[in-house]
């Protein structure tokens, strides 16, 4: 390197360290390269997810000159807002931070920018450090990279370790255990304020996250043979795997948890249930990784170092798809069982990811990519994932190996290992359930399932009607969009060869373990 340039880079690095600014890494844009460029970035209201983007945008502007306008809309509007902005040619936004399973609808018409070359040329992002699931599945479609992962998402169960240990109660291994524990603590005072608290807190609000939590209850009954089996549809006929006793049992348990939850549970989103859990009002909760980091925030948490986290509970009975009845787990029916319990951790949502509008001006696209890369680089992301307010959860291998940032973030060593261990167990599970990523997956889940789930919980429809209408509703969408197209997309998303023998999604998946046997933890 030119000695003068080296001296400038070194001075800049020292100066930025001295003033507390993030260091400019190799591969980052040269200082002020994007002077005068403005990037409008669309994401959801949060406050999570938007918070780190808004907080770090001024730092990025100081480094590169690019102004990042973070525009926020409610989560329920985000999918449509992104799509209509690009489809109508309005193109008011040049970058988006969104759910990666929606990308199929953005990529098909050619709206999202392919990022392969940019990623290849970017050393600062440390792409290989991103865990294989997020790097090879969440970010990829049809063999190409379209998004930059900023978050890692898995469902997991949180429990009040202090109370369960005191009472000699083991954390739940199955959903039946979960119900029993929830029942035991319902109405007890769990935070010493003299008021009765709740056994279980799960967001069940319509138009929010309720339908996603349904899946964590259903999957252990349905998927047993590894990730490539899939839990949503039959991989040969694309018929919904809905009309069976597994769904019945799961929905009954899901509804029963409401008896041991807050009265407003059906109108609560995850923000509400998280708030209840960290204020010590719940014995159990099902959530993404967020509660782990929120629970150590001294400003809001009353359960610091009192929280345990585990892999989502499983089932000792699974569906035999020939008879559609439940059969006990054994070596054949549940080859991936742990202690006789079939776990199927649900990689729900896939983690918030950043994408770029292909129709944006090239200079703006460069600036947008540079910002997404900046957010994903370990210097920023390893700190952000330890802060509950960001909504970002760990997704890099280094985040699991190096617990120093977690200790600095306020975790005790035991809590950090417990929390990371639960996520790692999900990531390493050979029976992990992938989120649905086929065209218009939003209609299958956020319209049909969400409405029916809410009607069933409210007692408007019976379980039989729920199953029938869910089956019919999904079939109607599949028939409308084309069974072959949807089947090919579904098989491709699972890494199963299409009828022509090629993979739609060039991932690293191969049954039974999509991620090999390599552990992520240190």
């Amino acid at each position, binding site marked *: 390197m030119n000695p003068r340039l080296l001296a400038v880079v070194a001075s800049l690095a020292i100066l930025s360290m001295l003033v507390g600014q993030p260091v400019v890494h190799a591969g980052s844009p040269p200082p002020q390269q994007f002077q005068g460029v403005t990037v409008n970035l669309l994401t959801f209201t949060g406050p999570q997810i938007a918070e780190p983007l808004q907080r770090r945008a001024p730092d990025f502007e100081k480094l590169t000159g690019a102004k990042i306008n973070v525009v926020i809309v409610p989560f*329920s*509007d985000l*999918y*449509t807002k992104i*799509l209509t902005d690009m*489809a109508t040619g309005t193109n008011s936004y040049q970058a988006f931070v969104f759910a990666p399973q929606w990308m199929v*609808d953005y990529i*098909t*018409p*050619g709206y999202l920018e392919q990022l392969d070359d940019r990623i290849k040329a970017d050393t600062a992002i440390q792409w290989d450090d991103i865990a294989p699931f997020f790097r090879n599945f969440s970010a990829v479609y049809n063999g190409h990279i379209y998004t930059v992962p900023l978050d890692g998402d898995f469902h997991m169960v949180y429990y009040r370790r202090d109370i369960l240990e005191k009472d000699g109660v083991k954390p739940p291994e199955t959903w039946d255990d979960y119900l029993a524990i929830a029942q035991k603590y319902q109405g007890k005072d769990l935070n010493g304020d003299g008021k*009765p608290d709740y056994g279980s807190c799960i967001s069940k*609000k*319509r*138009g*929010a996250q309720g339908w996603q939590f349904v899946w964590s209850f259903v999957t252990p009954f349905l998927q047993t043979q590894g990730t490539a089996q899939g839990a949503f549809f039959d991989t040969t006929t694309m018929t919904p795997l809905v009309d069976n006793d597994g769904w019945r049992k799961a929905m009954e348990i899901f509804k029963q948890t409401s008896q041991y939850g*807050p*009265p*407003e549970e*059906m*109108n609560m989103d995850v923000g509400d249930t998280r708030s209840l859990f960290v204020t010590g009002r719940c014995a159990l909760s099902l959530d993404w990784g967020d509660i782990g980091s929120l629970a150590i925030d001294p400003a809001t948490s009353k359960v610091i170092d009192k929280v345990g986290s585990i892999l989502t509970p499983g089932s000792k009975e699974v569906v035999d798809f020939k008879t559609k009845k439940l059969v006990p787990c054994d070596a054949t029916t549940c080859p991936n069982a742990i202690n006789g319990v079939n776990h199927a951790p649900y990689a729900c949502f896939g983690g918030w990811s950043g994408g770029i509008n292909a129709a944006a001006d090239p200079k703006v696209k460069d600036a947008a990519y540079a910002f997404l890369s900046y957010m994903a680089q370990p210097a920023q992301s390893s700190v952000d994932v330890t802060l509950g307010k960001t909504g970002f959860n760990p997704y890099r291998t280094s985040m699991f190996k190096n617990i120093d940032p977690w200790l600095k973030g306020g975790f005790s060593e035991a809590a950090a290992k417990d929390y990371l261990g639960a996520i790692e167990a999900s990531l390493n599970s050979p029976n992990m359930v992938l989120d649905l990523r086929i065209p*218009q997956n*939003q*209609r299958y889940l*956020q*319209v049909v399932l969400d*409405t029916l789930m*809410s*009607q*069933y*919980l*409210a*007692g*408007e*429809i019976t379980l039989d*009607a729920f199953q029938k*209408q869910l089956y*019919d*509703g999904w079939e*109607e969408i599949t028939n*409308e*969009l084309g069974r072959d197209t949807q089947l090919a997309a579904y098989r491709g998303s699972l890494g199963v060869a299409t009828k022509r023998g090629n993979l739609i999604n060039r991932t690293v998946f191969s049954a039974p373990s999509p991620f090999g046997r390599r552990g992520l933890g240190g």
Partner: protein
Amino acid sequence: MHSRLQRLSSTMERIAGHVFIWPAVLIVLFLAIFPLIISLYLSLSRFQFVPGGFQFTFVGLANYNKLLFGSERNHFLGQMMGPSLAGALVFGAVLVFMAWRLVRYGQSGRFSAGGLFQRLVVDAIFGLLLWVVVRTLLSGGFPGTLVVTLVYVFVDIAVQYCLGLALALLVTQRLAGRRFFRVVFLLPMMITPVGVAYIFRMLTDTTKGPFYPIWSLLGLLNFSWVNIPWGARAAVMIGDIWQWTPFMFIVLLAALEGQSMELIEAALVDGANRWQTFWRITLPQVMPVTTTLILIRMIEAFKIVDLPNVLTSGGPGTATESMTLQAYIAWRTLDLGGSAAIAYLLLFLVTLIAVMYINVVRRRVAEA
């Protein structure tokens, strides 16, 4: 020269009307008629993204079929059960009443074939709507967005009108502080509906809302408005009534203050008591205003969306979902055809009920 000027002048006079009227016509066409036609086409088509953009595929009446007979039937019309005894009695009574009206019309001097046809169509549609209400609300089923919307409209407007009239009568009395209350009663109307929804969301939260001590005292901490369909609907209706009663109040106040005092004084001189004065003099005088007021509120009330969306997200289940909210949710998920079909059914319903209402009240107002 003079004749040329005359010709020019007459030509300009002839086209002046067109020049003045056409810009307005074009604007109306552009802003109202064209969107109406386009949304009609949307309701008959399916929207899809394809490589390079999007396309609309003509699907005929498939979107309407889905709502009325297909997978969305339970959502739109509700879950229908066999009619209960009470439901059958109500339906039978209404049928007898409609038949009696038709007979009376046939015997009247105003009878015409066109008039009979019009009445038969309106009665048939009204009968179908009532049949849906009877088989959902009165027979142990659950109402769909159509019936929920009708409940919102009729209950809300009835309560708003009665409250608005009572408040207006109150502030026309010579009471202390009436000027202050005139302003205070108007405040809810000035708050955005989303703000009202959030206020009521807090008020109905039994676990941490401002009424927590009261719920606690009553032992209702494990009760939730939003878990019970009628509790949630009541919460939505109370919010809507709270917000829109001031509109009724202000218009009725103006009508009351504008009524002829000579008639009231004459009635009082003739020995009429307060109730008789109100019923025989005041109410007929405010009736023309009432007619317009209820029509405006009715058209507006059919479009209720903010309150159920923010307060309950349409839940529990679909218990509080209005037709507009259903259309909005369909639009949000890019089912543009389904959304437009719901919007057209709503337009049809509003027009039908508005026409029926005008027909009923016009004659009564004229008689009054």
